[in-house]
């Protein structure tokens, strides 16, 4: 792995890598996922599911660490999937995975919009106005190429975490009630409930691996790997506390709302706490929108530039922003967010996101295994020990979790998330199988018709022939 980062004028340090990794995972959707998780286990024992999920997140950390070490680039997901499997399968999975970003942006817009409407005591329909305004601001900022400075991102993430911890601890201390079944998750609940809780628990950590797209801008290559590890530890601590506080302080009805974090804030500090958590929810959107829009639009731009998507998706505005993917992402997220607002289907959103993230972790395990066999001599600054066992375990466990998450919504059987993932997969596969060959053929034809500009190298002078010996005088 090169050390180019050390010589760059501007490079990200470990602190920003940790905040980026943590911030990408700790979206506003985190609170809803935590609230959804606590109903699957007994009393105040949800932290156990969060801990088990944390161990699984460490497994994912290992896989992404090895893959990122082999391909320290923002295009890593394309690279390692392409080399580990058939390119069409790799593209199908990558496109399906991008659905997660749409869901997370839509979810955050919905949650923040709902939280603001609740905080201002407005009717529910006003959330739709807030959602539209938030996404319009995000799209506008992205189209203008506005960047969130690393320092501001650090501040936002650490503020969110600190405020959340303060609210949870204060609420627990003020409750003056003993914890109920903190070590007995199966008390009155089946093993299936624990499995579902673990699947949602994995979702609490998901997106921490998106920091690998910053591999080209870190000061030291190992900052990505270490940053992810520290992020997993931070997420375990904070999410355990959040689930503990939610299960202890909130009623079943409050857990089922679109803004359980506001209820948590009110339990801790009254109306002021509600306002604090509304502000915290809005602050999470900073990282989510910033990271989500940049990651997704850049992926679409890069894929269009390499000829796997129509060329118009690589069009840039005068600020060098790929405006077509940004607009498409913003409008798609808006539609999804408004549908969720109208149908109250945020729990479906959480379950779908959990299924997609577990799926990509299974794919990462598979890619790590296959690349060990296909490219054994490639430099690996970090290697997963016992990959033969852990890799297979990763594929099986994350695959099972993806399935569990996709057929369960709010403690009941519901195949809607599975249907959503299946539709995304079918659409992606259909594009790759039936549309992509035409797109690539058009690109090949366009290049063949474009003459080369580079002047040919001048022909080398002919080599001198053998010298003839002259005769005598």
């Amino acid at each position, binding site marked *: 792995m*090169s050390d*180019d*980062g050390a*010589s*760059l*004028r*501007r490079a990200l340090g470990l602190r920003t890598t940790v905040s980026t990794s943590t911030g990408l995972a700790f979206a506003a959707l985190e609170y809803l996922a935590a609230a959804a998780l606590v109903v699957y286990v007994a009393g105040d024992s949800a932290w156990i599911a969060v801990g088990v999920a944390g161990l699984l997140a460490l497994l994912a950390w290992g896989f992404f660490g090895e893959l990122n070490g082999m*391909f320290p*680039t*923002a*295009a890593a997901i*394309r*690279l390692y999937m*392409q080399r580990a499997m058939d390119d069409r399968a790799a593209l199908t999975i990558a496109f399906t995975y991008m659905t997660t970003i749409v869901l997370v942006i839509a979810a955050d817009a919905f949650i923040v919009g709902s939280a603001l409407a609740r905080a201002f005591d407005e009717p529910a329909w006003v959330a739709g106005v807030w959602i539209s305004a938030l996404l319009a601001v995000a799209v506008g900022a992205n189209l203008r*190429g506005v*960047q969130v400075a690393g320092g501001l991102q650090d501040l936002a993430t650490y503020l969110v975490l600190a405020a959340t911890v303060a609210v949870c601890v204060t609420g627990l201390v003020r409750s003056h009630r003993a914890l109920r079944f903190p070590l007995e998750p199966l008390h009155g609940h089946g093993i299936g409930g624990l499995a579902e809780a673990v699947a949602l628990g994995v979702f609490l950590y998901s997106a921490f691996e998106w920091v690998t*797209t*910053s591999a*080209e*801008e870190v000061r030291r290559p190992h900052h990505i790997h270490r940053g992810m590890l520290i992020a997993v530890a931070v997420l375990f601590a904070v999410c355990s506390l959040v689930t503990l506080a939610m299960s202890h302080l909130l009623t079943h009805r409050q857990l089922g709302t679109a803004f359980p974090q506001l209820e948590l804030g009110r339990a801790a500090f009254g109306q002021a706490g509600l306002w604090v958590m509304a502000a915290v929810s809005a602050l999470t959107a900073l990282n989510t929108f910033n990271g989500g829009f*940049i990651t997704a639009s*850049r992926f679409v*731009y*890069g*894929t269009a*530039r*390499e*000829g796997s998507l129509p060329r118009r998706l*690589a069009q*840039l505005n*005068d*600020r*060098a*922003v*790929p405006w077509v993917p940004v607009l498409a992402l913003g409008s798609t997220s808006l539609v999804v967010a408004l549908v969720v607002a109208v149908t109250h289907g945020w729990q479906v959103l959480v379950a779908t996101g959990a299924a997609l993230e577990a799926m990509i972790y299974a794919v990462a395990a598979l890619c790590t295994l296959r690349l060990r066999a296909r490219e054994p001599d490639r430099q690996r600054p970090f290697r997963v020990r016992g990959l033969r066992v852990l890799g297979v375990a990763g594929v099986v466990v994350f695959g099972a979790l993806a399935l569990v998450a996709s057929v369960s919504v709010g403690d009941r059987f519901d195949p809607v998330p599975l249907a959503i993932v299946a539709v995304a997969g079918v659409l992606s596969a259909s594009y790759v199988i039936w549309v992509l060959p035409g797109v690539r053929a058009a690109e090949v034809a366009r290049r063949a018709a*474009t003459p*080369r*500009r*580079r002047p040919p*190298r001048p022909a080398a002078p002919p080599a001198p022939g053998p010298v003839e010996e002259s005769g005598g005088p």
Partner: protein
Amino acid sequence: MATREEIAEAYADWRGRSNANERLKKMARGWDRVIHFRTTDTAEGFTVEVRDQQLSDLAFGPADRPDVIVTATSEDLCDMFWGDLNPSERYMTGEITLAGSQHDVMRIDAMTMVAFLDR
């Protein structure tokens, strides 16, 4: 392998096109950067600066604290400067690597694309 002279000639052509392109000048507004290129096959290094929306002359040798480092073969860099190579393709296969912020990487790719949009 491309020689220094070939790289210099290719860069001079790209520089001329880029500096005369009004759209690229808009894109480079407020974007002063030092870009260092490294060749993997000839072990050469050369640096260009973007200053006041203009590309500078090419300077061979190491760079002190560049903003972006582009690493590729000399042939790929030459072809890229002539507009015969889409650097994104090589980037997506790992043959061209970059170090720098995603924002700066996007700008450089924009410069390689927009300069030859009329082709």
